Protein backbone atom coordinates (compact mmCIF):
# COMPACT_ATOMS: atom_id res chain seq x y z
CA UNK A 1 0.00 0.00 0.00
CA UNK A 2 1.38 3.29 -0.90
CA UNK A 3 0.36 6.76 -0.23
CA UNK A 4 0.12 8.00 -3.76
CA UNK A 5 -1.84 11.04 -2.79
CA UNK A 6 0.73 13.54 -3.91
CA UNK A 7 0.40 17.22 -3.26
CA UNK A 8 1.82 19.31 -6.07
CA UNK A 9 5.40 19.98 -4.94
CA UNK A 10 5.92 23.72 -5.01
CA UNK A 11 9.66 23.93 -5.35
CA UNK A 12 10.40 20.53 -6.78
CA UNK A 13 10.96 20.70 -10.50
CA UNK A 14 11.48 17.59 -12.53
CA UNK A 15 13.12 19.56 -15.28
CA UNK A 16 16.09 20.07 -12.98
CA UNK A 17 16.75 16.37 -13.14
CA UNK A 18 18.27 14.64 -16.07
CA UNK A 19 15.48 12.30 -17.08
CA UNK A 20 17.85 9.57 -18.18
CA UNK A 21 19.67 9.71 -14.90
CA UNK A 22 16.41 9.38 -13.03
CA UNK A 23 15.34 6.39 -15.07
CA UNK A 24 18.71 4.74 -14.61
CA UNK A 25 18.49 5.04 -10.85
CA UNK A 26 14.94 3.81 -10.92
CA UNK A 27 15.85 0.77 -12.95
CA UNK A 28 18.75 -0.02 -10.64
CA UNK A 29 16.63 -0.05 -7.54
CA UNK A 30 13.92 -2.64 -7.82
CA UNK A 31 13.09 -2.73 -4.17
CA UNK A 32 10.63 0.02 -3.47
CA UNK A 33 12.10 0.55 -0.02
CA UNK A 34 15.39 1.69 -1.38
CA UNK A 35 15.44 5.43 -1.45
CA UNK A 36 16.70 7.37 -4.42
CA UNK A 37 18.14 10.24 -2.57
CA UNK A 38 21.53 9.99 -0.89
CA UNK A 39 20.30 12.32 1.85
CA UNK A 40 17.65 9.82 2.85
CA UNK A 41 20.21 7.23 3.92
CA UNK A 42 22.04 9.57 6.25
CA UNK A 43 18.85 11.03 7.61
CA UNK A 44 17.16 7.75 8.20
CA UNK A 45 18.52 7.02 11.62
CA UNK A 46 18.37 10.60 12.81
CA UNK A 47 15.55 12.59 11.30
CA UNK A 48 13.07 10.02 10.31
CA UNK A 49 10.07 10.50 12.48
CA UNK A 50 8.62 7.12 11.69
CA UNK A 51 9.82 3.77 13.00
CA UNK A 52 11.08 2.17 9.85
CA UNK A 53 12.24 -0.87 11.72
CA UNK A 54 8.65 -2.09 11.64
CA UNK A 55 8.73 -3.30 8.09
CA UNK A 56 5.95 -5.82 8.30
CA UNK A 57 2.37 -5.34 9.18
CA UNK A 58 1.57 -7.95 11.72
CA UNK A 59 -1.63 -8.51 13.47
CA UNK A 60 -1.66 -10.59 16.48
CA UNK A 61 -0.89 -13.78 17.88
CA UNK A 62 -3.16 -13.87 20.87
CA UNK A 63 -0.37 -13.10 23.32
CA UNK A 64 0.43 -9.79 21.56
CA UNK A 65 -3.20 -8.59 21.38
CA UNK A 66 -3.18 -4.87 21.83
CA UNK A 67 -6.06 -3.73 23.94
CA UNK A 68 -7.96 -0.65 23.01
CA UNK A 69 -6.50 2.50 24.56
CA UNK A 70 -8.50 3.61 27.57
CA UNK A 71 -9.75 6.75 25.83
CA UNK A 72 -11.70 4.65 23.34
CA UNK A 73 -14.84 2.63 23.94
CA UNK A 74 -15.21 -0.57 21.94
CA UNK A 75 -18.94 -0.20 21.36
CA UNK A 76 -18.51 3.24 19.80
CA UNK A 77 -15.77 2.31 17.32
CA UNK A 78 -16.62 3.31 13.76
CA UNK A 79 -17.20 0.44 11.36
CA UNK A 80 -15.80 2.24 8.34
CA UNK A 81 -13.03 4.82 8.41
CA UNK A 82 -11.94 6.73 5.32
CA UNK A 83 -8.63 8.56 5.15
CA UNK A 84 -7.27 11.21 2.79
CA UNK A 85 -3.54 10.74 3.23
CA UNK A 86 -2.37 14.26 2.50
CA UNK A 87 0.99 15.84 3.15
CA UNK A 88 3.72 13.46 1.96
CA UNK A 89 5.27 15.97 -0.39
CA UNK A 90 5.29 18.71 2.20
CA UNK A 91 6.71 16.36 4.82
CA UNK A 92 9.62 15.50 2.55
CA UNK A 93 10.18 19.13 1.59
CA UNK A 94 10.28 20.20 5.27
CA UNK A 95 13.10 17.73 5.82
CA UNK A 96 14.99 18.52 2.65
CA UNK A 97 14.16 15.11 1.21
CA UNK A 98 12.79 14.12 -2.18
CA UNK A 99 9.02 13.68 -2.68
CA UNK A 100 9.32 9.92 -3.03
CA UNK A 101 10.91 9.78 0.41
CA UNK A 102 7.74 11.38 1.66
CA UNK A 103 5.73 8.60 0.01
CA UNK A 104 7.90 6.03 1.61
CA UNK A 105 7.25 7.56 4.99
CA UNK A 106 3.59 7.64 4.07
CA UNK A 107 3.69 3.89 3.46
CA UNK A 108 5.04 3.31 6.95
CA UNK A 109 2.32 5.48 8.42
CA UNK A 110 -0.32 3.63 6.47
CA UNK A 111 0.96 0.26 7.65
CA UNK A 112 0.67 1.44 11.22
CA UNK A 113 -2.89 2.61 10.72
CA UNK A 114 -3.89 -0.62 8.94
CA UNK A 115 -2.46 -2.60 11.82
CA UNK A 116 -4.26 -0.54 14.42
CA UNK A 117 -7.53 -0.72 12.50
CA UNK A 118 -7.33 -4.47 12.43
CA UNK A 119 -6.60 -4.66 16.13
CA UNK A 120 -9.22 -2.19 17.22
CA UNK A 121 -12.16 -3.66 15.42
CA UNK A 122 -12.57 -1.32 12.49
CA UNK A 123 -14.03 -3.35 9.68
CA UNK A 124 -13.41 -1.25 6.61
CA UNK A 125 -10.59 1.19 5.94
CA UNK A 126 -10.71 3.21 2.74
CA UNK A 127 -7.67 5.22 1.71
CA UNK A 128 -7.37 7.79 -1.05
CA UNK A 129 -4.21 6.84 -2.89
CA UNK A 130 -4.48 8.48 -6.30
CA UNK A 131 -7.12 10.89 -7.46
CA UNK A 132 -8.34 11.65 -10.98
CA UNK A 133 -6.95 15.14 -10.35
CA UNK A 134 -3.45 13.66 -10.03
CA UNK A 135 -3.37 12.69 -13.71
CA UNK A 136 -2.03 16.14 -14.54
CA UNK A 137 1.27 15.25 -12.89
CA UNK A 138 4.26 14.74 -15.20
CA UNK A 139 4.15 11.38 -16.94
CA UNK A 140 7.42 10.25 -15.46
CA UNK A 141 6.15 10.89 -11.96
CA UNK A 142 2.95 8.95 -12.60
CA UNK A 143 4.83 5.99 -14.09
CA UNK A 144 7.16 6.05 -11.16
CA UNK A 145 4.30 6.11 -8.66
CA UNK A 146 2.48 3.22 -10.31
CA UNK A 147 5.57 1.09 -10.42
CA UNK A 148 6.12 1.78 -6.73
CA UNK A 149 2.51 0.89 -6.03
CA UNK A 150 2.92 -2.35 -7.93
CA UNK A 151 6.03 -3.29 -6.01
CA UNK A 152 4.41 -2.42 -2.69
CA UNK A 153 1.42 -4.57 -3.47
CA UNK A 154 3.59 -7.48 -4.46
CA UNK A 155 5.77 -7.27 -1.39
CA UNK A 156 3.04 -6.63 1.18
CA UNK A 157 0.04 -8.56 0.07
CA UNK A 158 1.24 -11.95 1.23
CA UNK A 159 1.56 -10.54 4.70
CA UNK A 160 -1.85 -8.97 4.67
CA UNK A 161 -3.42 -12.07 3.21
CA UNK A 162 -1.88 -14.04 6.05
CA UNK A 163 -3.42 -11.60 8.50
CA UNK A 164 -6.89 -12.02 7.09
CA UNK A 165 -7.08 -8.63 5.40
CA UNK A 166 -9.12 -8.26 2.27
CA UNK A 167 -7.84 -5.80 -0.29
CA UNK A 168 -10.08 -4.09 -2.82
CA UNK A 169 -9.12 -1.45 -5.32
CA UNK A 170 -11.66 1.07 -6.57
CA UNK A 171 -11.34 3.70 -9.24
CA UNK A 172 -11.03 4.12 -12.98
CA UNK A 173 -8.70 1.29 -13.92
CA UNK A 174 -8.79 2.03 -17.64
CA UNK A 175 -5.72 4.27 -17.47
CA UNK A 176 -3.62 2.08 -15.19
CA UNK A 177 -0.66 0.14 -16.64
CA UNK A 178 -1.48 -3.48 -17.51
CA UNK A 179 1.12 -4.95 -15.18
CA UNK A 180 -0.41 -3.08 -12.26
CA UNK A 181 -3.86 -4.24 -13.24
CA UNK A 182 -2.67 -7.84 -13.27
CA UNK A 183 -1.25 -7.50 -9.76
CA UNK A 184 -4.43 -5.80 -8.56
CA UNK A 185 -6.63 -8.58 -9.92
CA UNK A 186 -4.43 -11.20 -8.37
CA UNK A 187 -4.40 -9.48 -5.00
CA UNK A 188 -8.16 -9.01 -4.99
CA UNK A 189 -8.73 -12.62 -5.96
CA UNK A 190 -6.42 -14.09 -3.35
CA UNK A 191 -7.76 -11.99 -0.49
CA UNK A 192 -11.42 -11.89 -1.39
CA UNK A 193 -12.54 -14.24 1.37
CA UNK A 194 -10.68 -12.54 4.18
CA UNK A 195 -12.82 -11.09 6.90
CA UNK A 196 -10.84 -9.30 9.57
CA UNK A 197 -10.40 -5.96 7.86
CA UNK A 198 -11.23 -4.76 4.38
CA UNK A 199 -8.70 -2.33 3.01
CA UNK A 200 -10.09 -0.37 0.09
CA UNK A 201 -7.52 1.57 -1.89
CA UNK A 202 -8.88 4.27 -4.16
CA UNK A 203 -6.66 4.63 -7.24
CA UNK A 204 -7.70 6.80 -10.16
CA UNK A 205 -10.83 7.54 -8.16
CA UNK A 206 -13.09 10.50 -7.67
CA UNK A 207 -16.48 10.74 -6.06
CA UNK A 208 -18.03 12.34 -9.11
CA UNK A 209 -16.57 9.72 -11.41
CA UNK A 210 -18.03 7.00 -9.16
CA UNK A 211 -21.53 8.47 -9.26
CA UNK A 212 -21.23 9.08 -13.01
CA UNK A 213 -20.24 5.48 -13.76
CA UNK A 214 -23.13 4.30 -11.59
CA UNK A 215 -25.46 6.56 -13.55
CA UNK A 216 -24.12 5.27 -16.85
CA UNK A 217 -24.73 1.70 -15.73
CA UNK A 218 -28.27 2.56 -14.73
CA UNK A 219 -28.93 4.53 -17.93
CA UNK A 220 -27.80 1.55 -19.98
CA UNK A 221 -30.12 -0.72 -18.05
CA UNK A 222 -32.99 1.68 -18.68
CA UNK A 223 -32.16 1.77 -22.37
CA UNK A 224 -32.03 -2.02 -22.49
CA UNK A 225 -35.45 -2.13 -20.94
CA UNK A 226 -34.28 -3.87 -17.80
CA UNK A 227 -35.65 -1.18 -15.49
CA UNK A 228 -38.02 1.74 -15.77
CA UNK A 229 -36.98 5.33 -15.17
CA UNK A 230 -39.39 5.54 -12.22
CA UNK A 231 -37.64 2.61 -10.54
CA UNK A 232 -34.38 4.56 -10.21
CA UNK A 233 -33.90 5.28 -6.55
CA UNK A 234 -31.15 5.68 -3.95
CA UNK A 235 -30.81 1.96 -3.38
CA UNK A 236 -30.19 1.31 -7.07
CA UNK A 237 -27.49 3.95 -7.26
CA UNK A 238 -25.87 2.61 -4.13
CA UNK A 239 -25.69 -0.84 -5.70
CA UNK A 240 -23.92 0.50 -8.76
CA UNK A 241 -21.30 2.53 -6.93
CA UNK A 242 -17.78 1.14 -6.68
CA UNK A 243 -18.15 0.86 -2.92
CA UNK A 244 -20.60 -1.99 -3.44
CA UNK A 245 -17.59 -4.22 -2.80
CA UNK A 246 -18.19 -3.79 0.90
CA UNK A 247 -20.99 -4.39 3.34
CA UNK A 248 -20.49 -0.92 4.88
CA UNK A 249 -20.13 1.55 2.01
CA UNK A 250 -20.84 4.63 4.14
CA UNK A 251 -17.84 5.80 6.14
CA UNK A 252 -18.60 6.74 9.74
CA UNK A 253 -15.49 8.87 9.95
CA UNK A 254 -13.40 10.68 7.36
CA UNK A 255 -9.92 11.79 8.40
CA UNK A 256 -7.91 14.26 6.35
CA UNK A 257 -4.38 15.13 7.36
CA UNK A 258 -2.19 18.17 6.63
CA UNK A 259 -4.75 20.73 7.72
CA UNK A 260 -6.63 21.08 4.43
CA UNK A 261 -10.33 21.64 5.09
CA UNK A 262 -11.71 20.01 1.99
CA UNK A 263 -13.05 16.69 0.76
CA UNK A 264 -11.38 17.11 -2.66
CA UNK A 265 -13.73 14.88 -4.58
CA UNK A 266 -13.12 11.78 -2.48
CA UNK A 267 -16.32 9.88 -1.92
CA UNK A 268 -19.39 11.92 -2.47
CA UNK A 269 -22.60 9.96 -2.20
CA UNK A 270 -21.13 7.96 0.65
CA UNK A 271 -20.16 10.99 2.73
CA UNK A 272 -23.73 12.13 3.38
CA UNK A 273 -23.60 11.72 7.15
CA UNK A 274 -19.95 10.98 7.69
CA UNK A 275 -18.27 12.74 10.57
CA UNK A 276 -15.32 14.75 9.32
CA UNK A 277 -12.06 15.11 11.18
CA UNK A 278 -9.32 17.42 9.94
CA UNK A 279 -5.91 16.74 11.44
CA UNK A 280 -3.16 19.34 11.34
CA UNK A 281 -0.29 16.85 11.07
CA UNK A 282 1.10 15.77 7.76
CA UNK A 283 0.31 12.17 6.88
CA UNK A 284 3.69 10.59 7.72
CA UNK A 285 3.46 12.17 11.19
CA UNK A 286 -0.13 11.11 11.77
CA UNK A 287 0.45 7.75 13.47
CA UNK A 288 -1.12 6.19 16.50
CA UNK A 289 -1.63 9.34 18.55
CA UNK A 290 -3.35 11.16 15.71
CA UNK A 291 -5.56 8.16 15.06
CA UNK A 292 -6.57 7.97 18.71
CA UNK A 293 -7.39 11.66 18.69
CA UNK A 294 -9.57 11.26 15.62
CA UNK A 295 -11.38 8.26 17.06
CA UNK A 296 -11.89 9.97 20.42
CA UNK A 297 -13.38 12.98 18.68
CA UNK A 298 -15.68 10.67 16.69
CA UNK A 299 -16.86 8.86 19.81
CA UNK A 300 -17.82 12.13 21.46
CA UNK A 301 -20.04 13.24 18.64
CA UNK A 302 -23.77 13.02 18.58
CA UNK A 303 -24.98 11.66 15.27
CA UNK A 304 -28.53 12.52 14.33
CA UNK A 305 -28.74 11.67 10.59
CA UNK A 306 -31.19 14.52 10.07
CA UNK A 307 -33.49 13.46 12.85
CA UNK A 308 -33.69 14.56 16.43
CA UNK A 309 -32.19 13.14 19.60
CA UNK A 310 -34.32 14.45 22.44
Amino acid at each position, binding site marked *: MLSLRVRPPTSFDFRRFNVRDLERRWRLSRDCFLSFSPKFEENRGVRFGVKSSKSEVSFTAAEEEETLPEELQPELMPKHVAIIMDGNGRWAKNRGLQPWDGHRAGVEALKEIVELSGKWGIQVLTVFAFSTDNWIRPRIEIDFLFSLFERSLKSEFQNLAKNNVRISIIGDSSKLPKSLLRVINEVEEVTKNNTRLQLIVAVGYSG*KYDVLQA*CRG*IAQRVKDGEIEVEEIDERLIEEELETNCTEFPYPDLLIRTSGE*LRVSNFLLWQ*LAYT*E*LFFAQELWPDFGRSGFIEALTSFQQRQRRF*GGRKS
Partner: protein
Amino acid sequence: MNTQEEVGEFTQIFNALMSLMRKFIFKVLCVGPIPTNISFIMDGNRRFAKKRNLEGLDAGHRAGFISVKYILQYCKEIGVPYVTLYAFGMDNFKRGPEEVKCVMDLMLEKVELTIDQAVSGNMNGVRIIFAGDLNSLNERFRAATQKLMKLTEENRDLIVVVCVAYSTSVEIVHAVRDSCVRKCKNGDGPVALELSDVEECMYTSVVPVPDLVIRTGGGDRLSNFMTWQTSRSLLHRTEALWPELGLWHLVWAILKFQRMQDCLQKKKKFH
Protein backbone atom coordinates in the same frame (compact mmCIF):
# COMPACT_ATOMS: atom_id res chain seq x y z
CA MET B 1 -36.49 61.75 30.17
CA ASN B 2 -36.17 60.71 26.53
CA THR B 3 -39.17 61.09 24.31
CA GLN B 4 -40.11 58.42 21.80
CA GLU B 5 -38.58 60.53 19.04
CA GLU B 6 -35.24 60.93 20.78
CA VAL B 7 -34.96 57.22 21.41
CA GLY B 8 -35.71 56.70 17.74
CA GLU B 9 -33.04 59.19 16.80
CA PHE B 10 -30.47 57.57 19.03
CA THR B 11 -31.22 54.22 17.47
CA GLN B 12 -30.89 55.76 14.03
CA ILE B 13 -27.52 57.30 14.90
CA PHE B 14 -26.36 54.02 16.40
CA ASN B 15 -27.44 52.08 13.31
CA ALA B 16 -25.73 54.60 11.06
CA LEU B 17 -22.51 54.26 13.06
CA MET B 18 -22.70 50.48 12.89
CA SER B 19 -23.33 50.65 9.20
CA LEU B 20 -20.30 52.89 8.73
CA MET B 21 -18.12 50.55 10.75
CA ARG B 22 -19.31 47.60 8.69
CA LYS B 23 -18.60 49.48 5.47
CA PHE B 24 -15.04 50.06 6.64
CA ILE B 25 -14.50 46.43 7.62
CA PHE B 26 -15.98 45.15 4.37
CA LYS B 27 -13.87 47.54 2.33
CA VAL B 28 -10.77 46.05 3.89
CA LEU B 29 -12.11 42.53 3.35
CA CYS B 30 -12.82 43.22 -0.31
CA VAL B 31 -9.15 43.86 -1.05
CA GLY B 32 -8.78 40.09 -1.01
CA PRO B 33 -10.84 37.52 -2.91
CA ILE B 34 -14.45 37.14 -1.89
CA PRO B 35 -16.23 33.80 -2.26
CA THR B 36 -18.64 33.69 -5.18
CA ASN B 37 -21.09 31.48 -3.38
CA ILE B 38 -21.24 31.00 0.39
CA SER B 39 -23.42 28.20 1.66
CA PHE B 40 -24.69 27.96 5.20
CA ILE B 41 -25.73 24.84 7.07
CA MET B 42 -27.98 26.45 9.64
CA ASP B 43 -27.72 24.11 12.58
CA GLY B 44 -28.48 24.80 16.22
CA ASN B 45 -31.83 26.59 16.33
CA ARG B 46 -33.43 24.30 18.84
CA ARG B 47 -30.35 24.21 21.04
CA PHE B 48 -30.44 28.01 21.02
CA ALA B 49 -34.06 28.04 22.16
CA LYS B 50 -33.24 25.63 24.98
CA LYS B 51 -30.25 27.68 25.99
CA ARG B 52 -32.30 30.88 26.20
CA ASN B 53 -35.38 29.17 27.63
CA LEU B 54 -37.57 30.32 24.77
CA GLU B 55 -41.12 29.03 24.66
CA GLY B 56 -42.61 27.30 21.66
CA LEU B 57 -41.48 24.62 19.22
CA ASP B 58 -40.57 27.17 16.58
CA ALA B 59 -38.92 29.73 18.87
CA GLY B 60 -35.44 28.66 17.88
CA HIS B 61 -36.34 28.72 14.21
CA ARG B 62 -37.82 32.21 14.50
CA ALA B 63 -34.57 33.36 16.02
CA GLY B 64 -32.85 31.59 13.15
CA PHE B 65 -34.84 33.55 10.62
CA ILE B 66 -33.71 36.84 12.17
CA SER B 67 -30.17 35.59 11.80
CA VAL B 68 -30.85 34.80 8.14
CA LYS B 69 -31.91 38.38 7.49
CA TYR B 70 -28.76 39.80 9.07
CA ILE B 71 -26.44 37.39 7.30
CA LEU B 72 -28.05 38.12 3.94
CA GLN B 73 -27.67 41.82 4.59
CA TYR B 74 -23.99 41.42 5.44
CA CYS B 75 -23.38 39.25 2.38
CA LYS B 76 -25.05 41.84 0.19
CA GLU B 77 -22.94 44.63 1.69
CA ILE B 78 -19.76 42.62 1.19
CA GLY B 79 -20.75 41.92 -2.39
CA VAL B 80 -21.07 38.14 -2.31
CA PRO B 81 -23.11 37.36 -5.45
CA TYR B 82 -24.70 34.06 -4.32
CA VAL B 83 -25.75 32.64 -0.98
CA THR B 84 -27.13 29.14 -0.43
CA LEU B 85 -29.08 28.25 2.68
CA TYR B 86 -29.84 24.75 3.89
CA ALA B 87 -33.28 25.36 5.32
CA PHE B 88 -34.86 21.94 5.47
CA GLY B 89 -33.46 18.58 4.42
CA MET B 90 -35.34 15.52 3.23
CA ASP B 91 -34.02 13.68 6.25
CA ASN B 92 -35.46 16.34 8.55
CA PHE B 93 -38.89 14.90 7.76
CA LYS B 94 -37.86 12.15 10.19
CA ARG B 95 -38.38 14.56 13.06
CA GLY B 96 -41.56 14.63 15.12
CA PRO B 97 -44.65 15.54 13.05
CA GLU B 98 -45.46 18.55 15.28
CA GLU B 99 -42.00 19.97 14.80
CA VAL B 100 -42.07 19.38 11.04
CA LYS B 101 -45.49 21.04 10.78
CA CYS B 102 -44.30 23.93 12.94
CA VAL B 103 -41.24 24.53 10.77
CA MET B 104 -43.24 24.24 7.55
CA ASP B 105 -45.83 26.73 8.83
CA LEU B 106 -43.09 29.12 9.89
CA MET B 107 -41.40 28.89 6.49
CA LEU B 108 -44.71 29.46 4.74
CA GLU B 109 -45.36 32.50 6.93
CA LYS B 110 -41.96 33.95 6.09
CA VAL B 111 -42.32 33.21 2.38
CA GLU B 112 -45.68 34.98 2.32
CA LEU B 113 -44.17 37.90 4.21
CA THR B 114 -41.40 38.10 1.63
CA ILE B 115 -43.97 37.95 -1.18
CA ASP B 116 -45.64 41.03 0.32
CA GLN B 117 -42.25 42.72 0.46
CA ALA B 118 -41.59 41.83 -3.15
CA VAL B 119 -44.98 43.10 -4.25
CA SER B 120 -44.36 46.44 -2.53
CA GLY B 121 -40.92 46.68 -4.11
CA ASN B 122 -38.83 46.25 -0.95
CA MET B 123 -36.65 43.36 -2.02
CA ASN B 124 -33.49 45.47 -2.51
CA GLY B 125 -32.47 43.52 -5.56
CA VAL B 126 -32.51 40.13 -3.85
CA ARG B 127 -33.58 37.15 -5.92
CA ILE B 128 -34.88 34.05 -4.17
CA ILE B 129 -34.68 30.59 -5.70
CA PHE B 130 -36.00 27.46 -4.04
CA ALA B 131 -34.09 24.26 -4.68
CA GLY B 132 -35.19 20.79 -3.72
CA ASP B 133 -37.98 18.32 -4.26
CA LEU B 134 -40.69 20.97 -4.16
CA ASN B 135 -43.32 18.42 -5.17
CA SER B 136 -43.07 16.88 -1.72
CA LEU B 137 -44.24 20.12 -0.11
CA ASN B 138 -47.87 20.95 0.52
CA GLU B 139 -49.83 22.70 -2.19
CA ARG B 140 -49.99 26.10 -0.55
CA PHE B 141 -46.28 26.21 0.23
CA ARG B 142 -45.36 25.08 -3.25
CA ALA B 143 -47.55 27.75 -4.82
CA ALA B 144 -46.02 30.41 -2.56
CA THR B 145 -42.48 29.39 -3.52
CA GLN B 146 -43.35 29.52 -7.24
CA LYS B 147 -44.87 32.95 -6.78
CA LEU B 148 -41.89 34.34 -4.89
CA MET B 149 -39.46 32.94 -7.46
CA LYS B 150 -41.46 34.58 -10.24
CA LEU B 151 -41.71 37.93 -8.46
CA THR B 152 -37.98 38.17 -7.79
CA GLU B 153 -36.78 36.72 -11.09
CA GLU B 154 -35.35 39.99 -12.39
CA ASN B 155 -33.31 40.90 -9.32
CA ARG B 156 -29.57 40.57 -9.59
CA ASP B 157 -27.88 42.13 -6.56
CA LEU B 158 -27.90 39.02 -4.44
CA ILE B 159 -29.16 35.59 -5.44
CA VAL B 160 -30.27 33.45 -2.53
CA VAL B 161 -30.87 29.75 -3.03
CA VAL B 162 -33.02 28.29 -0.29
CA CYS B 163 -32.79 24.52 -0.12
CA VAL B 164 -36.05 23.05 1.06
CA ALA B 165 -36.87 19.33 0.96
CA TYR B 166 -33.36 18.94 -0.32
CA SER B 167 -30.71 16.28 -0.03
CA THR B 168 -27.88 15.33 -2.35
CA SER B 169 -29.13 11.75 -2.68
CA VAL B 170 -32.54 12.95 -3.83
CA GLU B 171 -30.91 15.49 -6.12
CA ILE B 172 -28.71 12.89 -7.78
CA VAL B 173 -31.58 10.42 -8.19
CA HIS B 174 -33.62 13.17 -9.79
CA ALA B 175 -30.70 14.18 -12.03
CA VAL B 176 -30.12 10.57 -13.12
CA ARG B 177 -33.78 10.11 -13.97
CA ASP B 178 -33.91 13.31 -15.98
CA SER B 179 -30.69 12.61 -17.86
CA CYS B 180 -31.85 9.03 -18.55
CA VAL B 181 -35.05 10.33 -20.04
CA ARG B 182 -33.06 12.69 -22.25
CA LYS B 183 -30.31 10.34 -23.31
CA CYS B 184 -32.13 7.07 -23.75
CA LYS B 185 -34.21 8.42 -26.57
CA ASN B 186 -31.23 8.78 -28.90
CA GLY B 187 -30.73 5.76 -31.10
CA ASP B 188 -29.63 2.25 -30.29
CA GLY B 189 -26.01 2.83 -29.39
CA PRO B 190 -24.62 2.84 -25.85
CA VAL B 191 -25.75 5.67 -23.65
CA ALA B 192 -23.27 8.55 -23.72
CA LEU B 193 -23.75 10.13 -20.34
CA GLU B 194 -21.29 12.83 -19.28
CA LEU B 195 -20.71 14.75 -16.08
CA SER B 196 -22.24 17.86 -17.60
CA ASP B 197 -25.45 15.98 -18.44
CA VAL B 198 -25.93 15.00 -14.83
CA GLU B 199 -24.95 18.40 -13.47
CA GLU B 200 -27.40 20.18 -15.77
CA CYS B 201 -30.28 18.33 -14.20
CA MET B 202 -29.42 19.16 -10.61
CA TYR B 203 -31.63 21.43 -8.53
CA THR B 204 -28.78 23.87 -7.94
CA SER B 205 -27.52 23.96 -11.52
CA VAL B 206 -28.51 27.63 -11.88
CA VAL B 207 -25.86 28.85 -9.44
CA PRO B 208 -22.10 28.27 -9.29
CA VAL B 209 -20.70 25.78 -6.81
CA PRO B 210 -20.08 27.08 -3.28
CA ASP B 211 -16.56 28.25 -2.50
CA LEU B 212 -17.14 28.29 1.21
CA VAL B 213 -19.40 26.18 3.39
CA ILE B 214 -20.11 27.47 6.88
CA ARG B 215 -21.65 25.04 9.32
CA THR B 216 -22.89 26.32 12.66
CA GLY B 217 -23.75 24.31 15.72
CA GLY B 218 -20.35 22.64 16.10
CA GLY B 219 -21.09 19.62 13.91
CA ASP B 220 -18.42 18.55 11.47
CA ARG B 221 -20.35 16.82 8.71
CA LEU B 222 -22.14 17.69 5.50
CA SER B 223 -25.51 16.14 6.40
CA ASN B 224 -26.28 15.23 2.80
CA PHE B 225 -26.10 18.87 1.76
CA MET B 226 -24.54 19.55 -1.61
CA THR B 227 -21.85 16.90 -1.21
CA TRP B 228 -21.54 16.91 -5.00
CA GLN B 229 -21.14 20.65 -5.37
CA THR B 230 -18.92 21.16 -2.34
CA SER B 231 -16.32 18.56 -3.22
CA ARG B 232 -13.67 21.26 -3.54
CA SER B 233 -15.13 23.88 -1.24
CA LEU B 234 -13.54 25.08 1.94
CA LEU B 235 -15.42 23.62 4.88
CA HIS B 236 -15.59 25.92 7.85
CA ARG B 237 -17.30 25.01 11.05
CA THR B 238 -18.07 27.09 14.08
CA GLU B 239 -19.31 26.23 17.54
CA ALA B 240 -21.72 29.14 17.48
CA LEU B 241 -25.34 28.14 17.03
CA TRP B 242 -27.08 29.52 13.94
CA PRO B 243 -29.04 32.31 15.71
CA GLU B 244 -25.74 33.35 17.33
CA LEU B 245 -23.89 33.67 14.05
CA GLY B 246 -22.92 37.27 13.60
CA LEU B 247 -20.74 39.68 11.72
CA TRP B 248 -17.48 38.52 13.27
CA HIS B 249 -18.06 34.87 12.49
CA LEU B 250 -18.73 35.73 8.88
CA VAL B 251 -15.68 37.97 8.63
CA TRP B 252 -13.50 35.28 10.19
CA ALA B 253 -14.79 32.65 7.77
CA ILE B 254 -14.07 34.89 4.80
CA LEU B 255 -10.57 35.69 6.11
CA LYS B 256 -9.92 31.96 6.40
CA PHE B 257 -11.14 31.51 2.86
CA GLN B 258 -8.77 34.23 1.68
CA ARG B 259 -5.83 32.60 3.46
CA MET B 260 -6.48 29.31 1.71
CA GLN B 261 -7.28 30.86 -1.63
CA ASP B 262 -3.84 30.14 -3.12
CA CYS B 263 -4.21 26.40 -2.77
CA LEU B 264 -7.79 26.58 -3.96
CA GLN B 265 -6.81 28.42 -7.16
CA LYS B 266 -4.11 25.89 -7.98
CA LYS B 267 -6.54 23.05 -7.62
CA LYS B 268 -9.26 24.81 -9.61
CA LYS B 269 -6.79 25.17 -12.48
CA PHE B 270 -6.35 21.42 -12.54
CA HIS B 271 -10.09 20.70 -12.53
